[in-house]
């Protein structure tokens, strides 16, 4: 059944117009690295030389966003699409020839039922000394699932030498203990979403991954007390989002630069973190539960960027005495937009940041509605360094206009104000007509409300 190979030229000579074949293999691999994985794999049937070139690509991004969009629209598709995704990853994993990998990204709706496949991929990645590993296993590609159904990161097989315990008939990897720990030592960034991480596994990451700078865990069960200490830790960026069982997080004596937490109120203990200058926090509905400013008290002085996640801005925010943040350059507030609640109380927070350069308010449209009421005014304040204000998710409510006006009137150094009328909740399902209409009206309202009031020196940008 074999057909004779057809050649356009005699074997010895290159086609004179064939310039790309003059390029060395590593350049061709560089070119293939610019393509998506699927596109790169297509080149394997171009010609003999190209057959295995793509398998040397250094970054494997198993992106299946289109499929995830389809599943979000019709969840029944999940059961037929999952095996296809798993097959695809397995095929590529089997064929990969490069000795090392820069990055591996798995992004699909997978849970513990695909455990052995995912274990295999993790081992493969680590054996190839991957530097950035991302497991994004969100349900439908967009929501967190119940932790009991999550895939659990394979901690035991990686650190304990039980020989070839999970040796797969199809696996051509020789997985011995030394290669695993060597591999882990190359890991610089680890991002796990909807993957259960046990406390032992977390300790293992921190102690074995000698160059781990970036660690992000979303939606993990199994964590109760998180402790990150030790100046020898290379960790610079730590992000923990909605890991519901956590009671305490302790960060002390470590050179962490950026910390991010979002979830229920916890006991947050931060001490002696000299390099920490960026915090993103949201404890509980109000975002400021458990007196979060007191929890952060030891590093408030040094903070340069602060993000607050305030799902429900409650009335009693007014009561809050915001501490002074003398070095804060950027303040980002992510606030739920309910009804037409006034946002002016946040101005007292801005006032507490005398050196602020950039202020961002991101409004998440929960149930916004425009009410006709008198525009209120907050007490005046000069804001001498504030040059950039962004209101993202501008709905056009009275409260939105109030706040924009506050800046137009008070910020003496203001150079640019950006109004973005787009819905901030990004779902996989495509925009409905009602949604598009909302955004159109928001844009119109912004123009109507703000353009006449704009001072001449300020650039007003409505996206």
């Amino acid at each position, binding site marked *: 059944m074999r057909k004779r190979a057809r050649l356009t030229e005699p074997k010895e000579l290159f086609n004179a117009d064939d310039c790309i074949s003059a390029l060395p293999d590593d350049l061709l691999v560089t070119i293939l690295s*610019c393509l998506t994985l699927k596109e790169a794999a297509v080149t394997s049937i171009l*010609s003999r030389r190209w057959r295995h070139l793509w398998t040397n690509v250094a970054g494997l991004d198993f992106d299946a966003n289109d499929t995830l969009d389809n599943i979000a629209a019709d969840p029944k598709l999940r059961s037929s699409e999952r095996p296809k995704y798993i097959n695809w990853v397995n095929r590529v994993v089997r064929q990969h020839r490069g000795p090392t990998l820069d990055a591996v990204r798995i992004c699909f709706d997978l849970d513990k039922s695909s455990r052995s496949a995912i274990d295999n991929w993790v081992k493969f990645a680590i054996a190839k000394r991957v530097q950035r590993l991302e497991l994004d296993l969100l349900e439908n590609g967009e929501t967190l699932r119940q932790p009991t159904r999550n895939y659990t990161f394979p901690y035991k097989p990686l650190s304990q030498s039980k020989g070839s315990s999970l040796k797969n008939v199809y696996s051509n990897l020789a997985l011995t203990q030394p290669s695993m720990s060597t591999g882990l030592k190359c890991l610089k960034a680890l991002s796990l979403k909807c993957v259960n991480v046990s406390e032992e596994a977390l300790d293992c990451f921190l102690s074995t991954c000698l160059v781990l700078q970036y660690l992000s865990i979303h939606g993990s069960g199994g964590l109760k007390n998180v402790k990150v200490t030790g100046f020898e830790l290379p960790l610079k960026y730590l992000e923990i989002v909605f890991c519901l069982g956590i009671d305490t997080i302790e960060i002390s004596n470590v050179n962490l630069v950026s910390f991010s937490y979002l979830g229920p109120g916890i006991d947050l203990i931060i001490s002696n973190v000299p390099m920490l200058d960026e915090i993103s926090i949201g404890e509980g509905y109000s975002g400021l539960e458990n007196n979060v400013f007191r929890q952060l008290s030891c590093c408030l002085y040094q903070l340069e960027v602060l993000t607050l996640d305030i799902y429900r801005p409650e009335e009693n925010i007014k009561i809050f005495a915001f501490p002074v943040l003398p070095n804060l350059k950027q303040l980002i507030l992510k606030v739920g937009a309910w009804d037409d609640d006034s946002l002016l109380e946040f101005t007292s927070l801005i006032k507490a940041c005398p050196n602020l350069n950039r202020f961002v308010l991101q409004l998440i449209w929960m149930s916004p509605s425009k009410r006709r009421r008198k525009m209120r005014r907050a007490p005046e304040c000069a804001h001498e360094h504030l040059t950039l204000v962004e209101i993202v998710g501008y709905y056009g409510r009275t409260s939105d206009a109030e706040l924009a006006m506050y800046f137009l009137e008070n910020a003496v150094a203001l150079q640019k104000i950006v109004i973005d009328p787009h819905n901030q909740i990004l779902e996989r399902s495509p925009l409905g007509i009602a949604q598009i209409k909302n955004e159109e009206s928001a844009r119109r309202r912004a123009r109507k409300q703000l353009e006449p009031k704009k001072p001449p020196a300020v650039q007003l940008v409505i996206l």
Partner: protein
Amino acid sequence: MTEADSEIIKPEMLKAYVWLQTSDGSIQQVEQEVAMYCPFICQEIHSGMGSSKNYPISLPSRVNPSMLSLILDYCRFHQVPGRSNKERKSFDEKFVRMDTKRLCELTSAADSLQLKPLVDLTSRALARVIEGKTPEEIREIFHLPDDLTEEEKLEPIKNTMDDPRIRLLNRLYARKRKELKERERLKVITSLFLPCDNVEIEEERGDERSVDDLLSFINGGGEDSKGTRTSKNKKKSRKRKDLKAASTNCTSTSNNTSSSSNDVDLNKKETNELHSESGNPSLHNKLLNDVCNATKLLDIEDDGLAAEDEFDGIDPALKEKLDREVEDFARRLNSDWPEIMQEILSRGQERRPLPLTVNGNGSLRRYTSSDQRHK
């Protein structure tokens, strides 16, 4: 040093120049600050070359004059420090608008001069040429030789296992899964009338036999029966180790084909790494492993390694060929049954396994005791 030189050689010029010689022998005079943007040229200058017409820097052979002029244009723009990112990006976009042949030459030349930003730029441009096109189109654009055989071209589309025997195994596993599902259903029905474990055990052991045989056939080539037996035993013990670990990982599949009773058993009996030869305790462990087998097969389904999906893309001719091979395969299995039977009987087992065979239309069915030709 260069400043002194330029004072002597060109007192009226304020700029410093270097001399570059391309592959065709021609020499060009270029502003030093522009040329220095290329690491290769920079190195050469530091080792003393290029300061005069008599000692030009020899550029690598891949750099011909037209490529050099392009590269120098690039360097001339980018070496100016004051430019914004937007400006640079805009320049780059316009810069790479050229035919693919020149793009390739440029990539090659830039690579030899170690000018990484330009290599990245041209690589991305070439990637954009490739993306979204069919292989035929790509071959045509780049004038690539079409030197793969038809079969080689088909490989990436179907299961790309190098070993055709493993592909066969996949096919058999797929049939096994179907068989198991059938049996699960039967079990449910029969358990209403015959609440007896014996029925379960027999069925599953029948599975193990044939699967192990398949493996040993594949690995041992199936020459002599003795060889088959020893390699089969080795297979079994290795499989047990796998299964032991797999058993701790067994969870229900998305199709929910694993029965909960299996899982319960596994959780209770986790400590076994035995070979098959020993006496009655082996029965216990065999039960465990039979059950593990069933779930291991289901695990494989999870992994998609034996997914039936993979076979949808095969053309019918190949499919037929595989079907015939599978039949052949299974028929040879049946001829090994006498040996297996002896083994089982010698271990004092009372229950006879229910072996499988292939009937005319290629589906597996169970031998009934009346069909058995050998004792």
